[in-house]
């Protein structure tokens, strides 16, 4: 229970409760004061108005009017009397002039003794006004009913506050408990996930509120972490496989060499072993390179570079290889296409694409390299009419170490496209595969600015 009281949800509920009560009380108080003021004001105005109107009547007219008023209009006038200049009552229902100023203004008398009674007193207001003949006219109204009405209003308001207070606290406590229960559930789930149950997810309701939104974000984060975990596992499996194979071969070859009595045979085994170690080193170097591009500090060498010039240079570099394989290689470059980037990295990425295209294109095939500017975006395309990529393999070719079924026969680290994709990403470029029907088309293009 103490923990419950200490929870932030409960504290918020209490604060809201207190604020509600203060606000309600203030509103009630204001309503009461307004009612009271309006009632009193109307009473005073009526009396003062009557007195002003009646002051010029003759004595007889006044007497008649008083009688009419006192007998027929009880609601507005309770007391009416005319006193002679010496203070003696001439007619009316009051014997004695109450202690009020004779100025035609209404005055409050807290305890006015009711005429014809010994000691009954009431609150009342009076207007006393001297007439031209020296006599004094007195009009009055009892405030007994008004006061009773005020008390009723006050009592009603006060009794309304108590349930209000209780209700507020109850609602606050209800929501606090519910919120804390949800937070506890989230806390427990996270604790379980941290213990290793990575498949659990935080509860999210159909109509999400703030907590659900955060829960959903956390769930998305967990999905991403899972994805990365799976990927890391896949990568380390691949690394293990790609390194284990040449190492095992090396081991076998050296053993065989040592067992043979001929030193020539040992030499041959050692030479073969070196070849396999070179392969392992190629893989390690490519892995380190990939890590460097992906996670290393962003290259400080970003400057204005011309993609057309870079591709033309690479074209010149690769063309002899194409010629030696009887592949028709073409270059389409119209004008300089300038970007901010690291020329060495872009060269590396494009050389991976061109190298791949040449690798997978048979004799008499075609490889095209083009650099264009489309909708203000730089686009490099490397396409061939070679064996292409099977539909099932298309989303896997950018994964580390992935080699297509046919690609396994071709030497390489299997990291070239991963490195190219990482370099593209570093430059806010996308690297996409498209079917060239037949063959492969790799498109490296600047991302649209959102």
């Amino acid at each position, binding site marked *: 229970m103490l923990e419950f009281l200490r929870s932030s949800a409960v504290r918020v509920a209490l604060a809201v409760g207190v604020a509600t009560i203060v606000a309600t009380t203030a509103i009630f108080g204001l309503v009461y004061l307004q009612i009271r003021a309006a009632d009193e004001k109307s009473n005073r105005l009526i009396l003062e108005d009557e007195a002003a109107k009646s002051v010029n009547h003759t004595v007889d007219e006044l007497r008649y009017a008083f009688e009419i008023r006192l007998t027929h209009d009880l609601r507005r006038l309770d007391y009416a009397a005319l006193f002679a200049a010496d203070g003696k009552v001439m007619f009316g229902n009051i014997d004695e002039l109450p202690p009020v100023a004779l100025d035609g203004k209404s005055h409050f008398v807290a305890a006015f003794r009711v005429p014809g009674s010994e000691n009954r007193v009431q609150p009342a207001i009076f207007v006393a006004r001297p007439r031209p003949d020296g006599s004094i006219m007195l009009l009055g109204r009892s405030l007994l009913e008004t006061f009773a009405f005020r008390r009723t209003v006050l009592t009603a308001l006060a009794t309304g506050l108590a349930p209000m207070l209780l209700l507020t606290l109850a609602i606050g406590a209800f929501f606090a408990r519910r919120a804390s229960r949800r937070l506890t559930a989230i806390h427990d789930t996270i604790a379980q996930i941290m213990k290793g149950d990575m498949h659990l997810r935080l509860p999210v309701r159909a109509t999400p509120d703030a907590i659900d939104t955060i829960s959903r974000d956390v769930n998305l984060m967990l999905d991403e972490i899972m994805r990365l975990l799976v990927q890391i596992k896949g990568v380390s499996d691949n690394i293990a496989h790609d390194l284990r194979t040449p190492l095992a071969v090396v081991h076998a070859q050296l053993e065989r060499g040592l067992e043979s009595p001929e030193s020539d045979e040992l030499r041959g085994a050692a030479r073969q072993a070196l070849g396999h170690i*070179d392969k392992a080193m190629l893989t390690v170097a490519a892995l380190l*390179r990939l890590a460097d591009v992906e996670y290393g*500090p962003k290259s400080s060498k970003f400057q204005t570079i011309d993609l057309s010039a870079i591709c033309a240079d690479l074209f010149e*570099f690769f063309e002899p*290889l194409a010629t030696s394989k009887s592949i028709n290689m073409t270059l389409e470059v119209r004008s300089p296409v300038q970007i901010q980037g690291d020329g*060495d990295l872009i060269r590396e990425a494009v050389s991976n694409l061109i*190298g791949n295209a040449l690798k997978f294109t048979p004799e008499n095939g075609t490889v095209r390299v083009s650099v264009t500017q489309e909708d203000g975006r730089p686009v490099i395309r490397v396409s061939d009419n070679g064996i292409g990529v099977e539909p099932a393999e298309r989303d896997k070719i950018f994964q580390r170490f992935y080699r297509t079924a046919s690609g396994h026969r071709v030497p390489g680290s299997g990291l070239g496209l991963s490195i190219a994709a990482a370099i593209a990403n570093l430059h806010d470029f996308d690297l996409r595969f498209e079917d060239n029907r037949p063959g492969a088309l790799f498109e490296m293009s600047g991302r649209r600015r959102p």
Partner: protein
Amino acid sequence: MTKVTSIARQTILLVEDEKDLANEIKLELERLGHRVRVASVAEAADAARVGDAAMLIMDRMVHGEDSLKTLEVLRKERVKVPVLVISALGSIDERVRGLKAGGDDYLTKPFAMAELAARVEALMRRLDDVRTTKLRVGELEMDLIEHTVHRGDTRIDLLPREFKLLEYFLRHPGQVITRAMLLEDVWQYHFSLETNVVDVHISNLRKKIDPRGAPSSLIVNIRGAGFMLDDDA
């Protein structure tokens, strides 16, 4: 252009804190006829200052310390010893930093011993003949001013890149040249290639410079390492 013998009496100082690797490098270079001493950064710097070092091979990080700082100091003192920086840090930025600090060449781990040996040879035999206007090996002559190549009286037409490639070989006759060295120095490509493009370029060059019907090429293959311009041809 025979082997420079005076340098052989001097020692290559090797700064490398991985003992196994240091030992392998030492054995390999000794096998090639060099004298090698494994040294600390300070020892190597002192030897270089008094002219006792044929060249320095420095690991970038030695016992957690950046040896490039010492190299920078040496260069400020105008010590001209050739320096090969080796490092596990392979990014292009790191390479540029190594060369800026005064390294003459930069090699990233892991590397093949043949690669290291080729680079050491190239640095040891680097000649201060930048002002040379003609390079010659056997019958082949390159005029750097006229930008022409002749074999005897026959003029050989080369594409600009082929010219550069041949120039590189002519400047390093009798030395092992690796594919990585050619990529870096002729094409300025600082990445490894998984294709044999360089071999194709070399074979195209051979077709142009070798006399018709010659029994062997002027540029020979060195198994497991690269190529060499045969200066005895």
